[in-house]
Each structure stands twice: as C-alpha cells, then as structure tokens.
C-alpha cells in the first residue's frame, strides 16, 4: 500500500514527530520514581523504560528512556508532555482517548499535538510503535494508584 504525502510535511513523519524524535522531552531518569515500567516489542527491538512519580492524585513526575523508531520515541515524548503534572484521572482519560484514536475508525480531536500521530493509522504495522509507551503508562497508572499511599 503506497501512500501519497505532501512534499512539505510527510503524512507519517510530520515535522512535529521528527522534532520530538530528535529533541525528546522528558527523556532520562526520574529521582525518586515510584513506578518503573518496561515495554518492548521483541520483534522490532523497540524498548521503552517509563518512570513515574504519582503524588496526591497527580502525575508529579514522568520520564522515559529507551530506544526505537521515530514513532515510538516521539509518541513517548509527546505522551509525557501531555500528562506531566495532570491529575491521574485526567492522565488516564488521555491514555484512553489516545488508544481510541489509534485503534478505532475515524479521527478524534482535543488531543493537541498528539493528533499528529493519526497518520500512523494508515501504517498498521507501525501502530504498535505508537502505542508502546502508552501501554507502559496504562500499566503504570494502574500499579501506581495501588501504591499511592507511599510517603
């Protein structure tokens, strides 16, 4: 399946994706971190290590490290941007909305920069790349809320 794309901004590799790939936000460690999660795709080798600090019902800190393609790395960077400092229930809602956008038919709006990742939907094998960090976050929010009564 060949896909047409404009010569100005590639429909898959949008400017903003390349920017997050080359200049990832929230990349590195987090100290202290409450939860650390690994997500990987054994078949293509993408790896994401996600660190979270949840405090008083909010995502006080978030960071990621790892390696992978522009889609998984940009997705991780934009994800961290979109949930950092947000109440956990709002973060959970974002996760849900993002997954819906990637897995369901039709577009979604209200996700800001993240909407740039919609182009991935036309490349079904790459959808897994986009979702990789989000699967880690989903798990982290679940684990973290269980451990919220930490100091």
């Amino acid at each position, binding site marked *: 399946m*060949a896909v047409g794309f404009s010569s100005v901004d590639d429909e*898959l*590799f949008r400017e903003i994706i390349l920017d997050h790939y080359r200049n990832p936000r929230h990349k590195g460690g987090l100290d202290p971190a409450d939860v650390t999660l690994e997500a990987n795709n054994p078949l293509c*080798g*993408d790896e994401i290590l996600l660190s979270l600090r949840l405090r008083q019902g909010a995502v006080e800190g978030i960071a990621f490290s790892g390696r*992978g*393609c522009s*889609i998984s790395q940009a997705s991780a960077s934009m994800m961290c941007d979109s949930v950092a400092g947000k109440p956990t229930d709002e973060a959970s809602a974002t996760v849900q909305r993002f997954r819906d956008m990637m897995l369901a038919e039709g577009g979604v709006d209200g996700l800001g920069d993240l909407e740039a990742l919609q182009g991935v939907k036309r490349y079904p094998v790459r959808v897994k790349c986009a979702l990789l960090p989000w699967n880690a976050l989903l798990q982290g929010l679940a684990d973290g809320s269980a451990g919220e009564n930490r100091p």
Partner: protein
Amino acid sequence: MTAITDPATLDVDRVRADFPVLARRIGERPLVYLDSAATSQKPLPVLDAVERYYWYSNANVHRGVHTLGTEATELFENARRRIAAFIDAPEDGVVFVRNATEGINLVAASYARELLSPGDRIVLTEMEHHSNLVPWQLAAEHAGLELAYIGVRDDGTLDLERAAELLRPPTRLLSIAHQSNVLGTINPVRQLVEMAHEHGAVVCVDAAQSVPHMPVSVRSLDCDFLAFSGHKMCAPMGIGVLWARPELLERMPPFLGGGSMILRVDLDHSTWNSVPHKFEAGTPDVASAAGLAVACDYLDAVGRDRIHAHELSLTRHLLDVLDEVGGLSVYGPGSVPERGGAVSFNVADVHPHDVGTILDREGVAVRAGHHCCQPLMRRLDVDATVRASMYLYNTHAEIDALGAALHEVKRVFRV
C-alpha cells in the same frame, strides 16, 4: 572478462519471468524485492512441482504398497539424492528437517547435549544468527558445556587469531555461518575445519546463506554437519536439510520420536531405524521436498557460478550506490568477493524501521531490525540495521531504485 564475473551471462529477464510475484505492485510502484536473505521468491517450476504432487501422487511415504504411496516415496527419496548431489555429499547423511534452525537444534540436542561431556567447549562466533546461538546455549546449560566466541573484526571478518587459540582442547565443536546474513562476510570455513579437525573438534556449518547463493561442496569443505533451509533457495517453505556424516548420525541418539524412525517398538523400549531415517519422525513434507529437488534443478540450470557472479556484480553496484547516496554507515567487508549479496547499513540518525517504511512506500522491500543477530548488533554498537539482500532475479535497475528511495528517506528526515 571471464564467464564467471560477467553478469551478462545470467539472463535476468528470462529468470524474472519465472517468478510471478515479481509482477506485484506495491501501491503504484513495482515491487523491488530486496529481502531474499529472509526468504526467497519461488519460480514456477517449483510451484508446479508442488501442485503436480498434490494433483497426482499425494500419499504418505515409506509405508504403502499402493501406487500413490510408492510414487510419493520415490519422489521423497529422489529428492534426498538430488540434494546430496547438489551439495556434493553422501546421500545417507541427508536428513530432512523444517529449516536450518531445526537442523542446528538437532545437532545441538543429539550430538552436543548427548555426546559431549561437562567442561567440553563449543565455539561460535559473534556474527551468528540466533538460530546458531540459542540451540547451543540450551545444550550447554543442560550438559554443562562451555561456550566461547570468535570475535568480529572492524572490517566485518572473523578474528582468525582468536579462532586458532580457541580451536584446541577442550573445544569439541565449532558451529559457524558460512556467510553472515547481516554483514555478507563469507567465512573461511574450509580453513576453520582444518584447524578444528587438527584438534579433534567437529564442525557444524550454518549454510543458510551460502547454499542458495554459491556452489557449496560438503566434500571439499570437509565439515561434519551442514544445515540450510529450502525457503531461502527458491524451494517451498517447510523443508530444510541437515547433512551430517553418517558415522556421526549412527552414534547420535534420536532427536524426535515417532512413526518412521523406529525399527521395533515395545511398550518400554524401542530400537531405531537406519540413518538418516532414525532422525525423521512422523509424516514429512513430501510436497516441499519434491519442490526442493526442483529448486536444485532450477538453480543448476541457471548455473550457480553464474548466480554467484550476478550477485557479486549487484553487490558491487549496491556498494557504489550507497556511497553515492552519502551519509550512510555501511557494515561488513567493503568489497567483493570477500562478501556476498547481503548488505547492511544505516542512514544517519534515522531508525531502520523508519527507513524501511519509507522504502516500502517506494515499493522497495528491505529488512530493518536486528536480523536475529542481537550480539552482532551490540558488536556494531547499533540497535538495528537496514539490510538489502539480493538474489538471481534482482537487477541493477532495482539497486538504482533503492538508491532513489534512500534519497527520499534523506529528504523526509532532512539528513
């Protein structure tokens, strides 16, 4: 120019006409298939052989007195003879397996695990495919064997000095790729066999990337085991070959148990059929074996020297094109004929998967990833590479198409 190095001697248009899939389009673009190291495409004579088998002679083998059973058995045993001739090896050492992976597992399980002793050493190399690493790791763990690795030098060749050190007691077995699926390096197997034999070690050759691409003679390599897959050499999937010295097969206990591999079964004990049948349990894939025999015929009709020369010519052109594209890191030996037609590279900071996706949009099929060689990736200090790999049906124009598509990658990623 000799016939061997003159690519014009292979009539690539005629060859292409035998491969229906090459007419496929990817979107608007013609398919440029540069992933033959993963699996090759299949020519019509092979597909016809499979179809003919199912239309006329399909039956189970070795057990029938009826006509179809006899025909199927003959096809199967003739295939064994054909393969033996193809690799210039005694026929009773040809064991049919699913693929190279199963062949190597057989040797690891029935030879290394069962016949070697704790403390014995198995030598591998840093450039091996997971299929030539993991089986030995499993055997080593179970049987208390030691593993050691011959390193890869910066030019993509093996560290032969280290090999000389390692190929002495307690080394009992060396298992090595004939040609690397990532670097294209053609390893000096014959020389390594001599070194190993001198110190009483046996040698298993992972020939998955050599038998399809060049003339291979077991007699002249003088190796003890040799494994390869049909699907990488124009044959159907589901069939592969382990060749082993019959004397070793005699000494090895069975691998899988079941129908056909027995002489007599009692409730508590069984005795085994003669080799190679002892190692073929259950109903084999007769159709694919028949297809493999026809694939041997096909490759020989085109000419294996000619195929090899054609691939070297394509490889030379590819190395030039990659150089012209610029800004790439290319791995493995820089020149033919020290290397075969599998070429790995990376495009600046662009991840190989992203390269692969853009190339696919241009109709160019390459592989992107670790190529089942994670230790080699670490040696190269990369997560993954892009790999273009060639076969008898590829053209110089297709290499040019790859070059153009790589310019597109650079444009999209602004490198």
